């Protein structure tokens, strides 16, 4: 039901029951927010969003106050502005003046607010900074002093991911955000999805940078540097260079990276194609040999970590096929190294991913069957953008270049792995071909392209109906797995991605992105599936040679990984 409210002497329409903030935003009006997170329960913790409402003695937090009847609101009165400014100054009282040396310099919500409130002197100084930094995790750095206690990380980790690795510790002025018993992150139940980083307004939580190692390798003439990037990166990195969201720059990125000085530039798609083909085979084998079913996807390392911690009983149901990142690294350090007569110790592989858990996957991979590390470094989308700037370049969208030989081509299906549902859609294309010998007519699975936490689809292939489930957001995954374990649901295959909507929304993606950026990125991925000519992984000419080699040696070991139960405080 709509009703009228008055804001700054202007009548606007509001939905009964919605918050003041939501009504304001829908009408193109803004108030600053810090602790507020769309789709999560408001806590009213930061009080940046306060407004003056006639009839109320105190200022009201717009993010949490529902509209029940007519209201007369002032969003920028003198009283409101003063209150917000004082709030901000009090927040800053506990914040070190470290902007110049801070990873979020230029992309910090606190800095932006300080700027917009014209704050140019320190009013209060409360505490001594401890400069305590938790670097224990393979992918996440926690800087206690930069935390403003907005609680966004705690809420996303609890309400969306249902991991709840983080909590408020103690109270009053000693409050901090940390893990159970204040253990280092590496000893906690964190699965490294990085969603907390995405919502952190400051540098309280950020990724562990691999940029120094990459610069080091690039400057070492003995190192043959090979970089490869994923489709989720190429549809989002342009945002870091001021382009509108949804611009796919895969081929321009190739040419930019070549200019930066990498010896070889690839797209990870060729490895994704191999991954998809192997996974399809795994499904068929398990279906014919009676299990264990369902088969779970293995491409998301945060999901793997989650299973290792919470569902050790299903580890044998997760495909042992390495993720595309690890396959790519393995291919480069074996087949490619042999072809070029390079010692794999001299090759330095850099993977560019939308994901921070991939940093840990690269390290975990070191202990796998092979004697070398498949992937030496993982850069996030953000880190690659900054590396390009460090090297004095920008993203030039006028120049284009294909991936280097021998990995020139990838199917458009391989690119769909960036979205939730895309992996399954691509698998169906391959399964159809494997079972019927023919290309599928309708390549698009619209049921899988909608934005939803859990999606299901059944497809008749030959005599068998295959049932698929697609889940994104690890909280949803927990629900689905419980249903599967209790026998409520049965599937042949389950695709799991820890991040909501999939890797395009990963923990390494651009921060503070424009409204609807995510939708535009997803659209860009589906558009390229529409436009590109190779739509089926099995038609990718770049992989046929590898398959010949594999079949000859009969050795697919480099494509295999394994999983171990992990005990943590959960």
């Amino acid at each position, binding site marked *: 039901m709509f009703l009228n409210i008055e804001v700054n002497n202007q009548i606007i329409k509001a939905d009964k029951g919605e918050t003041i903030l939501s009504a304001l935003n829908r009408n193109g009006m803004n108030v600053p927010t810090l602790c507020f997170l769309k789709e999560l329960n408001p806590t009213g913790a930061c009080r940046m969003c306060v407004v003056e409402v006639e009839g109320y003695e105190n200022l009201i937090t717009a993010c949490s106050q529902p509209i029940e009847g007519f209201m007369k609101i002032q969003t920028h009165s003198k009283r409101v502005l003063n209150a917000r400014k004082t709030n901000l100054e009090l927040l800053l009282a506990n914040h070190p003046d470290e902007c110049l040396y801070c990873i979020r310099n230029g992309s910090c919500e606190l800095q932006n607010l300080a700027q917009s409130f014209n704050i140019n002197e320190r009013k209060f100084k409360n505490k001594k900074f401890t400069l305590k930094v938790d670097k224990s995790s393979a992918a996440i750095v926690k800087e206690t002093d930069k935390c403003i206690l907005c609680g966004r990380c705690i809420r996303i980790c609890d309400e969306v991911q249902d991991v*709840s690795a983080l909590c408020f*510790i*103690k109270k009053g002025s000693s409050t901090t955000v940390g893990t159970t*018993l204040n253990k280092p992150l590496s000893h906690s*139940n964190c699965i490294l999805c990085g969603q907390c980083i995405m919502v952190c307004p400051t540098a309280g939580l950020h990724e562990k940078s691999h940029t120094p190692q990459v610069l080091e390798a690039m400057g070492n003439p003995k190192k043959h540097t090979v970089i490869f990037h994923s489709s989720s990166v190429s549809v989002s990195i342009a945002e870091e260079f001021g382009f509108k969201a949804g611009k796919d720059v895969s081929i321009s990125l190739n040419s930019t990276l070549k200019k930066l000085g990498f010896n070889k530039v690839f797209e990870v798609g060729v490895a994704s194609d191999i991954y998809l083909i192997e996974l399809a085979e795994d499904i068929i084998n398990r279906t014919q040999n009676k299990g264990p079913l369902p088969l779970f996807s293995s491409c998301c390392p945060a999901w793997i970590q989650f299973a290792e911690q919470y569902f050790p009983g299903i580890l044998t149901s997760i495909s042992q096929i390495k993720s595309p990142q690890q396959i790519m690294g393995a291919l480069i350090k074996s087949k490619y190294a042999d072809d070029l007569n390079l010692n794999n110790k001299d090759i330095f592989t850099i993977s560019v991913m939308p994901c921070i858990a991939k940093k840990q996957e690269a390290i975990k991979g070191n202990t796998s069957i092979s004697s070398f590390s498949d992937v030496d470094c993982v850069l996030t989308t953000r880190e690659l953008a900054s590396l390009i700037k460090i090297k004095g370049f920008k993203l030039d969208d006028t120049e284009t270049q294909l991936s280097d030989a021998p990995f020139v081509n990838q199917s458009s299906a391989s690119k769909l792995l960036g979205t939730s549902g895309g992996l399954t859609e691509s698998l169906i294309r391959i399964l159809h071909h494997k079972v019927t010998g023919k290309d599928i007519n309708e390549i698009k699975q619209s049921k899988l392209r909608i934005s939803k936490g859990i999606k299901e689809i059944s497809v008749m292939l030959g005599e068998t109906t295959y049932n698929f489930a697609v889940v994104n957001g690890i909280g949803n995954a927990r629900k689905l797995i419980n249903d599967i374990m209790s026998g409520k649901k049965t599937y042949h295959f389950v695709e799991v991605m820890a991040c909501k909507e999939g890797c395009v929304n990963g923990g390494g993606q651009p921060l503070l992105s424009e409204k609807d950026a995510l939708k535009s990125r997803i659209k860009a991925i589906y558009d390229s599936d529409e436009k590109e000519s190779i739509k089926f992984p099995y038609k990718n000419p770049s992989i046929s040679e590898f398959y010949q080699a594999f079949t000859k040696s009969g050795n697919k070991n480099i494509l295999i990984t394994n999983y171990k139960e992990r005990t943590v*405080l*959960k």
Partner: protein
Amino acid sequence: MDNLIELILLKYPKNATENIIEILLQIQEAEGFISAQSIIMLSEHVGVQSSKIYSVASFYDQFVFEARAKFIIRVCSGTSCYISGSDTIISFLEKEFNIRIGEITRDHVFQIETKSCLGACAQSPVLEINGVFYSNLTPQRIRQIIHQCKSSLQ
């Protein structure tokens, strides 16, 4: 000690969150502190993630998360006491219990800490055990005190 916690938990319904603080108090009473193991068991019992249990517990100052000894010996390390030989007292205690400052004996009976000026400089060197002051210390006297502590346990 897991049994102790189990016994406590058995008294409370499963998946009910309203008793968390009461249970924590009982665990601390029984064990002297809230261990990682007890947090895990409590968290499974009431069906709440461990971080939320810890968050609640850390809110209250009375909960401690490390083993505490029966007797916490705080040796004054203020200037007066230092001059009158607090460091010999500390090394005496360290030898006696075979632990270092801040540590706790294996049987959880003794723990040594230091504290700056306890406010009894005239009678230095001094130490405090669970709130009781002992002054004008000498090794013999300390031996006596330790003996007293031990026999009070029997």
